[in-house]
């Protein structure tokens, strides 16, 4: 650590020091311990690379990888770095190939990352070439451990000591399987935004139901997510993963909405098709936002479904990469509904626009104030599941795990 005075300001997680959002040494430690260790990182959907040879580039922390469908149907996740001189091997963002050829010296790898060929390995007319003891099998592309569940691909740089299922825990796995229940997925498209704030603020945002009733006029007015509705905040045993769950309510003035400046009883849509959701999941929850440590948010808000992948760039910026999807057996009406409701989400989303702008302002307030702390004690100071939204418990859960991993 560059600064020895870095000490967590309390013995719990109800105070979060500002330097974790600014310090490059902290960011470097996060890259190693959170994004480069043995956690399961979200990579892509299987539907993005359906056929052998199909590949897609992705970023896990600050490392770039390529996910590729092998000839036997398996999915390999390879670090996009030639074993020779560290050049990027794969330059297209997606496509289909038979083998990877490094553009620099044409070292060639198969879809599993095994080194197949080195030009002039034996030299030319008895001159040059690699040493006789050069062993191609020791110079493949770095290959990650991969696991899949119902169409979603995860990978790990280390040797995970638990399966994805154990990693998520029973409760989170239940919510995961609610959206990914084995139905074939269809990618509807991508959005991506670069946000000049620390990546952890994105997670905090989606673990914080308290702000949603105050900031988001759209959610509040139309009852899509509001604290007078039956809701819950739930976590796994460690606190690292969480869900916000809620049920849609009416556009009515009541004891709660009367306190919300964001509630606009007279605001109506001229074209109400934007908000005509249809129930499609079991149970009565209409919105489940699931945050999976350390780089994934699964969004189910009404009928709009998306993977939001967090790509940290440095202490002060991250990319948020959205992959919108539906199911292969969706009716045309459902497909259209998903496209329409996507107006709420993404970089121009009528709801999520507020969040990206809020994160910008958060970081602006944090910068230059390393000696200050954020107060995270709405709903108490403990980490516990709650059946209401007036709480920051899931942010505390996140930092409980973060402190342990980061040794802070």
């Amino acid at each position, binding site marked *: 650590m560059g600064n020895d005075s870095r000490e967590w300001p309390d013995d719990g997680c109800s105070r979060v020091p500002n330097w974790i959002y600014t310090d490059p040494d902290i960011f470097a430690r996060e890259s190693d311990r959170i994004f480069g260790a043995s956690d399961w990182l979200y990579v892509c959907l299987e539907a993005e690379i359906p056929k052998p040879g199909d590949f897609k580039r992705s970023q896990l922390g600050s490392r770039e990888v390529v996910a590729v469908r092998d000839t036997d149907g398996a999915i390999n996740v390879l670090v996009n770095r030639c074993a020779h001189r560290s050049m990027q091997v794969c330059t297209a*963002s997606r496509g289909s190939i038979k083998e990877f050829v490094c553009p620099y010296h044409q070292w060639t790898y198969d879809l599993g990352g095994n080194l197949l060929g080195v030009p002039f390995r034996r030299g030319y007319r008895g001159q040059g070439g690699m040493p006789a003891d050069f062993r191609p099998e020791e110079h493949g592309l770095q290959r990650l451990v991969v696991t899949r569940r119902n169409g979603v691909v995860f990978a790990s740089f280390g040797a995970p000591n638990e399966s994805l299922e154990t990693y998520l825990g029973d409760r989170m796995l239940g919510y995961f399987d609610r959206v990914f229940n084995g139905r074939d997925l269809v*990618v*509807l*498209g*991508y*959005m*991506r*935004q*670069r*946000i*000049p704030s620390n990546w952890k603020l994105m997670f905090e945002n989606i673990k914080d139901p308290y702000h949603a009733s105050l*900031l988001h*006029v*759209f959610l509040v*007015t139309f009852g899509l997510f509001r604290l007078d509705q039956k809701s819950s905040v739930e976590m796994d045993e460690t606190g690292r993963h969480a869900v916000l769950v809620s049920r849609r309510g009416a556009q009515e003035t009541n004891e709660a909405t009367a306190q919300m400046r*964001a509630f*606009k009883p007279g*605001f109506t*849509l*001229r*074209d109400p*098709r*934007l908000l005509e959701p249809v129930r499609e999941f079991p149970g009565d929850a209409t919105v489940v936002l699931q945050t999976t440590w350390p780089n994934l948010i699964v969004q189910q808000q009404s009928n709009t479904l998306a993977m939001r992948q967090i790509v940290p760039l440095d202490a002060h910026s991250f*990319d948020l990469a959205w992959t*919108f999807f539906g199911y292969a057996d969706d009716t045309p009406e459902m*497909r259209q509904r998903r*496209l*329409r409701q*996507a*107006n709420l989400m*993404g*970089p*121009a*989303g*009528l709801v999520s*626009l*507020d969040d*990206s*702008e*809020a994160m*910008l*302002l958060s970081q602006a307030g944090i910068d230059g104030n390393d000696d200050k702390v954020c107060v995270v004690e709405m709903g108490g100071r403990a980490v516990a599941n709650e059946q209401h939204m007036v709480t920051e418990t899931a942010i505390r859960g996140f930092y409980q795990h973060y402190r342990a991993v980061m040794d802070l």
Partner: protein
Amino acid sequence: MVAVARGLDVTLELRARLDDLYCAYDDALNDGELERWPELFTDACVYKVMPRENHEQGLPIGLIYCESRDMLVDRVVALRETALYAPRIVRRITSAACVRAIESDGLRVTANFALFQTMPDRPSELFLCGRYQDRIVDDGGMLRFAERLCIYDSTIVPVSLVYPI
């Protein structure tokens, strides 16, 4: 300025009317007169904003996806009354439009755009650039957009897209 693809018969009068439409569009958004923006579309218009990668792969999702003039109006009202965002100026420079085809359901016209964003106390910077793909019809004596597809080149939007393209 309007150009015409070789072999198409477009009168000077129609070119002038197209010029007026494109100019009115740029003015409405450059001047921050968002309320004038929906008036340039037909009732049943389609307005979409998407990255080039979606368009090239035939993926339908749009950052903005409006299927009627009413949805455009709803978005304007939402931006005016509900959304939180830092103040900014977005100025677009639109290239000469080119009439590519004349079909029974309207003129197919394309143009290139560059959007420059100026945030408070920051230098101006290029925000997004790309291409408009339009279908334009005569709607009761007024030329209007029946379809405007805004395809931006980068995969990445800097922070957020507040105003329409």
